[in-house]
């Protein structure tokens, strides 16, 4: 496939890397080191245990694993780490970024196209980074007659709300940012903010395309919120709790999708509508109303909206996994941490490095995360799939389906769940549990 850049030579690439390293070393030794010494000359260094804490000593202490591993371990269990890195924003943003790239390649393969190809040597793998850099370097244009405060705050609120939604999703046992007793209700409260943000930023842009798109988004999200909530009631009835972690624990032996398949189908369709994806992408129908309520956003404001959209996609897929597919439950496939490293340390030739405090993550958590990611990735692929297959449906058909069919279907599974509960088959104190 590599007819794109025939002048590329691996040897030249490696040579250029060495070139860069040479210049960095040269500039550091000629400019950086003198600056460091000049600064050190004026700083009064502290005395610890009778020793002068020079930068060399500080780095030696930091490199000592018996000091650094406990620091890292305690940092992992802080709230900041949970919010910013693992079950929170960083993890979700990583999955969202992977989703964007996989979506483009996946749809291209489905439609017998190539997809991103030029950027990065292997199958255009750096395309996403290029897009991000482009969005960041673009100018943010505010329409002259726009309502500036709302227009500015719209994308931020969108990402913030999506992040709040992400924080409610439990990834592994005990690994969730916020674990309220009314977790499912918190999800409903959070997704209620999306239509407000959409319609407000659409109104603030003062353009007919955005306004039509915003009103469509409002119609669609409001009408599909009701079947969404109703389809989840059967899960609440069967598991007897609103806490998302406890719902996952209640699926230790079987997944709820076995007993509530109709709810799962309704919920799946409603999340496609809530995410404004094809075949329900009326709010941003690009062949009718330019880009819908996103028309006037440019540069990084558009980037933020896209980030929020994909965070929302991850959160909805994670919610589907948590509620219907058993969350982190799965057979233990993750290998245990080798005991030798904990007791004897790592021996390389004459050097033995001991790491007291390892392992950083326990086996259960890693296994749970693995299963959660596998299931969520499957659900995300299923959500992406209709985009390559279906055309967009009309708004009256959409609303008709939303108000008549999905609400009715959602009720069907509530009655099935109630029947199973009162027959004493499932639920708290049932035959199977």
């Amino acid at each position, binding site marked *: 496939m590599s007819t794109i850049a025939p002048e590329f030579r691996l040897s030249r690439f490696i040579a250029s890397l060495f070139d860069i390293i040479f210049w960095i070393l040269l500039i550091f030794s000629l400019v950086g080191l003198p600056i460091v010494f000049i600064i050190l000359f004026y700083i009064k260094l502290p005395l610890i245990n009778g020793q002068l804490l020079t930068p060399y000593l500080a780095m030696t202490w930091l490199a000592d694993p018996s000091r650094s591993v406990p620091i890292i371990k305690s940092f992992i269990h802080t709230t900041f780490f949970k919010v910013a890195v693992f079950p929170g924003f960083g993890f979700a943003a990583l999955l969202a970024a992977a989703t964007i790239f996989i979506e483009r390649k996946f749809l291209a393969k489905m439609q017998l196209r190539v997809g991103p190809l030029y950027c990065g040597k292997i199958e255009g793998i750096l395309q996403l980074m290029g897009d991000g850099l482009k969005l960041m370097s673009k100018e943010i244009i505010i329409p002259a007659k726009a309502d500036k405060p709302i227009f500015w705050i719209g994308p931020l609120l969108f990402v913030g709300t999506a992040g709040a939604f992400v924080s409610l999703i439990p990834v592994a046992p005990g690994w969730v940012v916020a674990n309220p007793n009314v977790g499912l209700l918190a999800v*409903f409260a959070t997704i209620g903010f999306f239509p407000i943000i959409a319609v407000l930023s659409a109104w603030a842009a003062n353009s007919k395309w955005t306004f039509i798109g915003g009103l469509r988004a409002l119609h669609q999200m409001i009408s599909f919120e009701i079947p969404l909530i109703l389809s989840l009631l059967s899960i609440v009835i069967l598991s007897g709790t609103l806490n998302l972690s406890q719902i996952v624990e209640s699926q230790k032996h079987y997944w709820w999708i076995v007993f509530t398949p109709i709810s799962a189908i309704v919920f799946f369709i409603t999340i496609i509508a809530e995410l404004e994806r094809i075949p329900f992408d009326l709010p941003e129908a690009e062949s009718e109303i330019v880009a819908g309520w996103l028309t006037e956003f440019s540069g990084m404001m558009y980037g933020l909206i896209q980030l929020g959209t994909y965070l929302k996609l991850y959160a909805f897929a994670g919610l589907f996994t948590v509620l219907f597919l058993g969350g982190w439950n799965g057979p233990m496939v993750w290998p245990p941490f080798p005991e030798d490293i904990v007791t004897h340390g790592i021996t390389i030739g004459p050097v033995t490095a001991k790491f007291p405090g390892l392992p950083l993550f326990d086996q259960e958590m890693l296994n749970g995360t693995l299963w959660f990611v596998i299931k969520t990735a499957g659900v995300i692929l299923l959500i992406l799939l209709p985009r390559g297959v279906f055309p967009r449906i009309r708004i009256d058909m959409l609303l008709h389906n939303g108000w008549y069919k999905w609400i009715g279907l959602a009720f069907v599974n509530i009655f099935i769940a109630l029947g199973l509960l009162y027959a004493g088959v499932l639920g708290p104190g049932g035959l199977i549990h």
Partner: protein
Amino acid sequence: MVDSIFLSLSVLTIGSAIAALEIRSLIYGSIALMITLSGIAGFFLLLDAPFVAMFQLSVYVGSIAVLILFTVMLVRRELIFNKIEDPRRRYAGIGLMLIIMLGIGTIIIGSGLKSVETDAPSVDYKKIGEDFLTYYSPALIVMALILTSSVIGALALARREDVTSDQRTD
């Protein structure tokens, strides 16, 4: 800690409530109303009632405020924005508010509400649900019937039989 949160929530709620009344722009007024309603949800959270707080958010902010926004955006501005400017009305309103607040305040302070224990455990929503389904079940059934009949009534009123649509809807 709770006191500072309570104070800031109060300032936010009352301030945005006043803003919702006073701001000229209808959109900003409805945004201020949303902030007020969210602030009330914050009060419920402080009172150890997350269940009510989440419903406050999803019903009032998620539905009612959206309905108000929707109405504001779709109705022409001149029709609903009659300018009746009279400072005496405002002073009368402030005076009335002060009188009502004084009256309610004296009643509450005189009622011995201060001696109520505040360390009592919060009521579990599961207990409320159980009570609803056992002791208060007649009231629940009556409420359900009223709601169902109002939904059916709304559907019947919204149904337009004079319009025959040529478009296929399914």
